[in-house]
Every structure is written in C-alpha cells, then in structure tokens.
C-alpha cells in the first residue's frame, strides 16, 4: 500500500489487493472526514480529492495509517437482489469455457454473494467482485457495438449490469429489468461501492 501524488488537491492510494481497496474505501466512508470532494475506489486503488484548504487528505492518510485493512469495518452493507433472466447470447460460450452445463452457470452465478468494488465505464455501472472461479473468463475478442440495457455480463474477476445501451466486450449471460441508473432518482445509482448484491433467477 502506497500513496501517490495526484495533482494539487488529490492523492491516490495504491493498494495490494482488491480486498484491501474495499477495506480502505469502507474505512474512509465510515469516518467520512469533512472536506472530501471525491472518493473513488478503483480495482486496486482509492482516489481521494479534497476541497482545497480542508486538510481532508491529511486526515485520510492518518485514518488509514492506523487502520486494520485486513479486517474491514463491520458496518451493515446494503443488500440488493437483482432478478435475472438467464438468456444471454454468450451463455453457451461461458458454459463451454467453464466446462459445465448452462444450468451450472446459472447456479454458480446466483449462489454467490457479490460486493460492488467500484463504479466506472458509465454512470451506475458497478464492478461486482465475488465471481466464482469457473466464471472468471476473458472479454470477447471483438466487443459488441450495442449491448442492450440491463444486460448482465462477466469479465475477468467481475460481473456487472450495463445500465443502458452502450458498446461493450463483456460476455453476456442474461438480463434484468431493474433500472440501474436514473439521474432523477435519489439515489441515482442503484449500486454504490460497498453494497452487497445477489442475483436471483427469474426463469
């Protein structure tokens, strides 16, 4: 774990693992020192930007230097269940590469409990960690130019849901009708870093 400079009013914490990143983010979120302008977890990092002159960066450094990041704060994460129809175009490919049946893919995906590690790519697109090993598969060699909204995909160590139409290279296994992002709603994004997510087969 190491701090790196990020311009005048920010710093990036390089973390050793995704688990450490999640713990660091949870620790800062729980304490939430005043003056934090942005707090952006990544796959192996935590970006902290402060309101100039607030001293929030120094406060976060102090907080994390004394924190036990092997055991993140307990807290009570929100739990969100998403109903999914497992009818994705890449379902067979995923089953083949995993060496299991399509039913097994659905069972593996629905049995796991996921954590929103970070958001990016598009508003409300959460990178969910906790994917069972056989489902950790590469992106498509040629990304789709149009992925329909609500598509549930997998890529590498992550699973996630496309909030709206966009290009994308994740392997698609199903879709949900749940709205992931609505700028007029409060909160606007259904998934925020730290949330727990389960998928339920809607048949």
């Amino acid at each position, binding site marked *: 774990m190491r701090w*790196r*400079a*990020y*311009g*005048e*009013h*920010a710093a*990036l914490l*390089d973390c050793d693992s995704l688990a450490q990143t999640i713990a660091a983010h949870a620790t800062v979120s729980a304490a939430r020192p005043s003056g934090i*302008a*942005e*707090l*952006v*977890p*990544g*796959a*192996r*990092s*935590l*970006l902290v*930007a402060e309101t100039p002159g607030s001293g929030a960066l120094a406060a976060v450094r102090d907080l994390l230097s004394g924190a036990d990041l092997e055991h993140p704060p307990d807290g009570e994460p929100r739990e969100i269940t998403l109903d999914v129809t497992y009818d994705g175009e890449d379902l067979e490919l995923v089953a083949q590469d995993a060496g299991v049946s399509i039913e097994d893919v659905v069972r593996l995906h629905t049995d796991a409990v996921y954590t929103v590690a*970070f*958001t*990016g*790519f*598009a*508003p*409300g*697109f959460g*990178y969910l960690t906790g994917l069972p090993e056989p489902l950790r598969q590469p992106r498509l060699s040629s990304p789709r130019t149009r992925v329909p909204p609500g598509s549930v995909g997998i890529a590498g160590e992550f699973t996630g849901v496309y909030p709206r139409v966009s290009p994308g290279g994740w392997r698609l296994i199903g879709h949900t009708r749940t709205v992931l*992002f609505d*700028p*007029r709603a409060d*909160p*606007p*994004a259904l998934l*925020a*870093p730290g949330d727990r997510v389960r998928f339920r087969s809607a048949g």
Partner: protein
Amino acid sequence: MRALEVLRPGPLALVQDLGRPGYAHLGVPPSGALDVPALKLANRLVGNDEAAAGVECLFGGLRLRATTSCTIAVTGPAVTVEVDGRAVGSHSPVWLAAGQVVAIGAPATGLRCYLAVSGGIAVDAELGSRSRDVLSEIGPAPLKTGDVLPLGTPSLPGGADVVLPTAAPAELVVPVEPGPRAHWFEDLATGLAKTWTVTSESNRVGLRLDGAALVRRDEYAEKELPSEGLLTGAVQVPPNGLPVVFLADHPTTGGYPVAAVVRQASLPALAQARPGTLLRFHSSTKVWNR
C-alpha cells in the same frame, strides 16, 4: 412564460452551470462549464447567482429570441453579439425587449462563449445540476431549433460596466504536477515540455494532443493498469504515447496511466484551446524527484 426560443443552435450549444461534482464514485462525471470564470462573469453581469445555468456556445452561430424582456450577457473570448442585426458587443449586459433576437458570431480566438440571461435557464436539474454531460448524456439535450428554454426569476443586475474580453493565445504553457503513474515514463518532464498540438478529436471529455510520443520505462512497457479513479485535469497516456488531458465530462475511472495533472488554474485556458493550438507542459524539476 419567461423564455428564450432557439432559432438556430450553431455547431453545439449546451446548457451548463457549475456541474455536479461529488458523484464520481457512481460513475458520474463532474461536467459543468469548461470555462468556469467566463460563465460566472456572464451571470454576474446579468445579476444572477454565479452558479445559474447559461448556454455554452461552441464556435458561435447561436440565435435566440426572447419571449419576454430580459437581460443577457455574452462572455468568453471576444465575439460579435447582435440584437435584431445591430451590434451590441460582448462582455456587457444587454437588455432585450420581448420578441428581439440575439445572435452570437464566431469568436475571433478561442472556442467557447457563454450566454447568461437574467433569471438563469430553468430547465429541470438532474443530480443537482442543469449541465449537459456529453459523455454520460445526463442533463438537457444539446439545443436544437425550436427549443424553448424556460427562465427563472430575475433579480436586479449588479451594475458592472466595462469588462475586457479575454483572448485565447495561439500557444499555451500549462503548469502540471506529477500524476500517480509518473514513474511509468522515461524522462517525463522533458517529454511533456516538448511542443504538443491540440487535435480536432478534442471535445468536452478531453483534449487530445499530437506530438513526440511519451515513452514508458522498460519495466512498465507491457504493464496493464487496473481501472483507477480519474479527475479533471488528469493527463492520461494511452499506449500510443499521445496524452489526453481530461476536461469536465471525463470518465470517472480508466485503465491507462495518468502521468501528470494540470493545475486547476489552467483549465479555463484549455477550454478555449482550438485544434492547432500549440501547448507545452511546464513543471518545476524538483517535483518529479519526490
């Protein structure tokens, strides 16, 4: 209803205010006016709160008709402003009677002019802001002919008199600080200090630059970077070595190394950098050795 009617939007006219910072963790860019001081000035000239929404007008061509009497002001680089065909000048408050038409010409230098109107543009806010975010497509759609922009309640103009327009220089010197992945690059300060050219691929997401490609150190040559947080002003360097300077509508995470970060005071100048503008990054050598 107090309103402005769009007769012609020009190449690109967007409603902008000071943006929606604080949502990066949800994947939402900060957005907002790229030349913040220009929007604030225009608002002050018409008696608005500095944070009121105005129109960011890319390369002029905007024509609006007032459905009610109101006060407007146009700021940014020097530009012709006409009311019913009569030149009235930028950088000063101009009173429009109901039915009058204001037209903004192409700026002599720079790219983006800002039109503020008394009461501000009162379209619905999304996530606390009326800014159009071109990357995420949040906020009001780009203006098109026939749009009717509702106006808020006006207050008394502040009474500013003469304000000098800015002129965008043909060559920019941009102060930078080290970014989190500065150590990935060979002789970075020297590379950044060479002359770069702003390309026509640039937009509100970022300024794309052409020049002598930055070179990664051998040990980082093939290294993949897991997605990490991005901020406005980040100088991100894709594998081709040509930097992208992120502006207000930047993605909130990305997978290429951020070599340097532009000082915030330079962002308004970057907002006005036309394609072809020459640009050099400047940093004090001591900061690279920390």
